[in-house]
């Protein structure tokens, strides 16, 4: 039992934090709100650091690392509310591409583009034209699953080029425009885009979803911590009745409650990442625990941080909104806390019922 990160993992985390403190500030986020499709150069920086291809095997040019290595970096991305699709590309899609690269040229080329040029991926749980897909408007390619006649298929679909088998996203207006949400008005999947079917597709997609739960959870941890930090600073500074509002127990207890939730969400996320890397039989249940806990922690942090700010927190001017909006979206993405509680319970009843 050694539940800790290595010195190297912690150093990588602090290196990324320094970079994002310069390249992903609230001013940068405001610029992204104004023009979500503008390239701020951050993705290139992350690519050069090896972050984008971190989960790609070394023989394919990546760092060959796992989710335990990635979660701390995703926490940093969350702290900065990074707009670029690190969860989708690095945590979710890259391992699927790597698993199939030997058999599909399409996957091999995508993997090369990911390692060499920072290919941006989106991931879609269906080909339903009504289902919104995060990052669709900025993605170079989409990993998409459909179930036809009870058989799962996974498709790798480009977002540019000619012909029917190209995913052409139509913008969906969302509260946080940096999410670049779109929907695909025609079903772009076909025999040319198919990369896995049947049992293999079930297994690959099931694993992808577990990584999605944990990676999104890690991002939410960072968002929660950032919101609490912003609010603690505000509560130390803002005076009413002649003293900082952070000296009042009513305010202290709100923030302490959020901090306790965050403290206990963290090991849930870290342990689930390790279990996924190990192929542990409890990985699915712990991945759901991680997402449920992180969603609740971020939702609670968002609520009390807005409350502790008072009216200023309700303004466009206040930086808090940049992090609130992302946490609201991600708390629901890849399953809400409620969804995951049901998954956890089903698995528990199977084992202990």
């Amino acid at each position: 039992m050694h539940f800790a990160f290595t010195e190297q993992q912690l150093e990588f985390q602090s290196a990324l934090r320094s970079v994002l403190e310069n390249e992903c500030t609230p001013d940068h986020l405001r610029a992204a709100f104004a023009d979500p499709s503008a390239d701020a150069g951050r993705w290139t920086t992350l690519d050069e650091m090896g972050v984008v291809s971190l989960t790609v095997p070394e023989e394919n040019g990546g760092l060959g690392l796992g989710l335990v290595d990635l979660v701390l970096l995703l926490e940093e991305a969350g702290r900065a509310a990074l707009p670029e699709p690190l969860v989708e590309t690095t945590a979710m899609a890259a391992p699927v591409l790597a698993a199939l690269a030997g058999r599909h040229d399409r996957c091999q080329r995508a993997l090369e583009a990911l390692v060499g040029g920072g290919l941006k991926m989106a991931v879609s749980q269906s080909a339903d034209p009504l289902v919104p897909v995060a990052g669709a408007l900025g993605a170079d390619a989409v990993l998409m699953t459909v179930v036809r006649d009870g058989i799962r298929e996974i498709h790798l679909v480009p977002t540019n080029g000619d012909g029917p088998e190209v995913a052409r996203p139509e913008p969906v207006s969302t509260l946080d425009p940096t999410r670049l949400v779109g929907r695909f008005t025609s079903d772009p999947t076909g025999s040319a885009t198919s990369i896995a079917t049947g049992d293999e597709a079930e297994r690959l997609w099931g694993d992808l979803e577990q990584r999605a739960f944990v990676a999104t959870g890690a991002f939410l941890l960072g968002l929660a911590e950032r919101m609490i930090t912003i609010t603690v600073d505000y509560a130390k500074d803002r005076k009413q009745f002649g003293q900082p509002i952070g000296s009042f127990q009513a305010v202290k207890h709100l923030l302490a409650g959020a901090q306790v939730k965050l403290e206990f969400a963290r090991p849930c996320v870290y342990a689930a990442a390790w279990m996924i890397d190990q192929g542990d039989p409890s990985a699915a249940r712990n991945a759901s625990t991680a997402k449920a806990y992180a969603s609740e922690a971020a939702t609670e942090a968002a609520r009390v941080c807005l409350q502790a700010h008072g009216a200023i927190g309700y303004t466009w001017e206040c930086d808090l909104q940049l992090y609130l909006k992302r946490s609201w979206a991600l708390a629901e993405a890849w399953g809400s806390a409620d969804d995951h509680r049901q998954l956890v319970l089903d698995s528990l009843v199977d084992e202990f019922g």
Partner: protein
Amino acid sequence: MTEKSMDLHFTADQEAFRLEARHWLTAHVPPAGSLPSLDTAEGFEAHRAWEQTMFADSWSVVAWPREFGGRDVGLLEWLIFEEEYWRAQAPLRVSQNGIFLLAPTLFEFGTPDQQARFLPPMASGAEIWCQGWSEPDAGSDLAGIRSRARRSDSEGGWLLSGQKTWASRGAFAEWCFGLFRTDPEAERHRGLTYFLIDLATPGVTVRPIPQIDGETGFAEIFFEDVFVPDAHVLGDVGQGWNVAMATAGSERGLSLRSPARYTEAARRLVALYASRAGDAKARRLSGDVAQAWMDAEAYRLNTFFTATRVLNGGSVGPEASANKIHWSETDLAIHRTALALLGPDAERHGGHEGNAWLDGYLFALAGPIYAGTNEIQRNVVAERMLGLPRK
């Protein structure tokens, strides 16, 4: 933080230790619920006998050095033992105030003579301890202690007077550890001294207090010129607050609350849910059942995260307060959910299935109050983890 990679498995030696503990417990633990409540005179002695059974085979204080009756195992092995202890549904520890709260303080501040005098009978259950901290006017504001100790040079010791209250196990315990004011001029945290007091000394009056469940789990203790020799002062005279805070850290943090009691209760909650899974009521409560299990799991994982830090030279600071908030609320949530599942059966008391959950709920209700109320703990989290101003 070393170059060792994360690894949540136990070693083969640790798993062998687990099996050894499991074998012993399987052979010796009395049937679940067969002992009378430890808050009765009869139950107290039955629980003391259980402590002696464990001590005879060196299972009562596994993490202590062998010379005091332990097995000298590490923190992780202790957590493994606790997992097996709770899984076996073994009795509550009547000696818990001594072995979990006082013992860490004795190891840190006690003289070799004090350790040799007090630790073995504590480990065997021959001497059961209670805690004398709270007073009628010093609860959450513990530094408001007024009970006093007067110096008696002629006798080579101190004369204690005043009143302590809410002393768990106090109705039947033999010994009490407590804080008394030795410097009447000093205020608040200064001028306090930590005493080890034989409750059979003349001048001690113990008055049991019936609890919400009707039993006498705690007591108030009156002191009228009670003599305590210098040999029974723990730590330096006037340093009682610092000595006591070491114990408080134990109570709130790692040493008292092993995660196993919650993971085990959560497991039984899932079984209770599964036995009623067809009910509409159970379905409505499914989210609460899952959340209660996850709360216990989060506590377990956080404990191993903290234990790894401690084993690598780190310490438990204000996180102990976050821990205390979390485990006490988890315990409440588990039991409240069980009672909700039981519905009209929940109020039955004495012998029925509802009984164990109801007793557990009553016990859980005390959790957010003792060891520093959760409101005080939230202040600690806000001030010492988040850095919010005290005033």
